[in-house]
């Protein structure tokens, strides 16, 4: 959680300094939920994170360098400058790179799980993360139904952070609770307080374990508030002040830290040391990546097919070479 937060702060700083092309999308407010999901999964599982899953990615094993390289467009990163920011992943290692179209990753997780079943690999779980906005897409409903029909070990985590970009829940859905959507497909759903790390750890661990044990697809709906804009370009001025002051508006990182101190599980010094350690880790990653090259358009093969021999060559008129 802390590493994710510190990494976010660094990326936001680089964005404000004009060092990052494109957007920066922070996980602020969703770290407890996301980290709990990442921790409940294990190597060999499938994970399709969404925009605010910085913490879950790290907990699942994504290197800090992958995030920094993708944000800064390093050619050494997993996306090599071809895609940026949160659209990164390592599909061969079970970490699926999101496309921007919401809900679209869920059925991809389903398919990966179907493949595991064909290959008779047992005990795998696939997790997909979405927000309240994605529950309005057809893709979400098709995929949840598909997982139920195939009885796949899917854990679908819905982070209800009250806004899809600027659109509040009341303009997004009319059901009492987002858990109702799962009921329609015969999928059990649980609620979790996304601001409370302990609740998140408990519910996600239980849900993932039950799914792993053959319990079929399950959904988890977390209540939380996005503590930042949609991206760093967005000042989030539309977020209701009352919500910010409500329990939903608590910062999950602060809540967790207070608990650690209250229980005596860590003291301020230990937490300070941890923060210094992760800050150093992030700073080193950024310093490393800032020395790495971006992609070279003249070395780029401009080939979208794996079958190179079937790539079309378009003979556009090139500008005349300069003398």
């Amino acid at each position, binding site marked *: 959680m802390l590493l994710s937060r510190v990494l976010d702060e660094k990326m936001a700083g680089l964005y404000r300094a004009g060092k990052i092309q494109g957007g920066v999308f922070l996980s602020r407010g969703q770290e407890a939920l996301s980290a709990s999901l990442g921790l409940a999964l294990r190597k060999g599982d499938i994970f399709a994170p969404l925009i605010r899953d910085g913490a879950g990615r790290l907990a699942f094993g994504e290197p800090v360098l992958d995030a920094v390289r993708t944000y800064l467009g390093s050619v050494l990163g997993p996306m090599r400058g071809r895609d940026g920011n949160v659209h990164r992943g390592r599909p061969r290692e079970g970490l699926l790179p999101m496309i921007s179209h919401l809900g679209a990753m*869920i059925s991809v997780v389903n398919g990966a799980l*179907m493949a595991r079943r064909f290959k008779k690999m047992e005990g795998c779980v696939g997790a997909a993360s979405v927000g309240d906005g994605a529950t309005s897409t057809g893709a979400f409903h*098709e995929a949840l139904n598909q997982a139920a029909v195939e009885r796949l070990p899917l854990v679908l985590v819905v982070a209800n952070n009250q806004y899809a970009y600027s659109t509040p829940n009341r303009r997004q859905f009319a059901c009492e609770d987002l858990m109702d959507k799962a009921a329609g497909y015969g999928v059990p759903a649980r609620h979790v307080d996304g601001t409370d790390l302990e609740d998140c750890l408990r519910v996600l661990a239980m849900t993932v374990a039950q799914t792993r044990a053959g319990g079929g697809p399950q959904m988890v709906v977390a209540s939380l508030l996005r503590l930042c804009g949609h991206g760093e370009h967005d000042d989030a001025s539309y977020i209701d002040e009352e919500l910010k002051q409500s329990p939903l508006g608590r910062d999950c990182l602060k809540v967790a830290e207070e608990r650690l101190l209250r229980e005596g599980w860590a003291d301020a010094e230990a937490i300070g040391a941890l923060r210094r350690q992760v800050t150093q880790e992030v700073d080193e990653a950024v310093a490393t990546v800032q020395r790495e090259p971006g992609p070279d358009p003249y070395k780029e093969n401009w080939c979208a097919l*794996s079958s190179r*021999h079937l790539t079309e060559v378009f*003979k556009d008129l090139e500008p005349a070479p300069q003398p």
Partner: protein
Amino acid sequence: MSITYLEAIRAAQAKALADDPRVFIYGQDVGAFGGAFKATKNLAREFPGRVLDAPISEDAIVGAAIGAAIEGMRPIIEMQYADFSTPGLNQIINQAATLFWRTQVPCPITIRLPSGGTSGAGPFHSQSLECLYAHYPGLIVMTPATVEDAYSMLLEAVALDDPVIFCEHKRLYSHLKAPALPTEAMPVGKARIARAGRDLTIVAYSAMVQDALAAAEELAAEGLEIEVVDLRSIKPLDTDTIMASVARTGRLLCVGESFPWGGVTAEVIARVAAEGFGLLDAPPQRLNAKDTPIPFHPNLWLVHRPTAESVCAAARNLLEM
């Protein structure tokens, strides 16, 4: 003993399933029922657990195929009709087509689109969507016009590491027959001279090759020698074979069953005009379906799409230019 275009498609899928344990078929009604057109007849019984009925969820069907492909499987998706691939368009063009470019992980999926018009099928069971898919980088689009190609190209589609949109023409399903399945095939990406001639080149693909051949036969009775180029795949498009044919004939008519705006016929003419302008003795011409939804009634449908008759007329006009 003869085999139809549809039987060839079924046989290719049976062979793919038998040869490669990574292959499975997923689509609506493809299981015990054997598919709306029976292209998967008996396959669920012959390959238990590997031919799966899907819910009516084209987006999730394609999404699942992509996920399975990432995990090393080689899914064949049957869209019940090409027209119904549009609810799955997002997964095809934004997920499948971009995966390799973004991650270097290939996406070997084959999506079968029963395409094209049959009389009485109307606006939503008749479309030819190959041009739509050919527009997107990262997809291969095959348009087999013969029984032999239906078989060998489908096998090649499954073997390729890239997403393939396999446009099989419904009107050819039972009408088109061959003596036997082929034992060898041309490589994907190469067009075929379906009929040699020296007066005019007709470039066609899918069922339009058959109409073009019928037109060429009719014109032969008038002493005209029409060359017919069967594109086989529209992406990649074999410009070299087209250009060589136009170099022989000096006249180009390009025929497609899809809607007229843009598309394969426009692409072929653009390439010939740009790269082979000097080869042309007359302005290149194109013939497509009309720019309306596809009509239901046979009286309307028969003139909506190009036919051997309209191809003949267009060829005669072009020969007089």
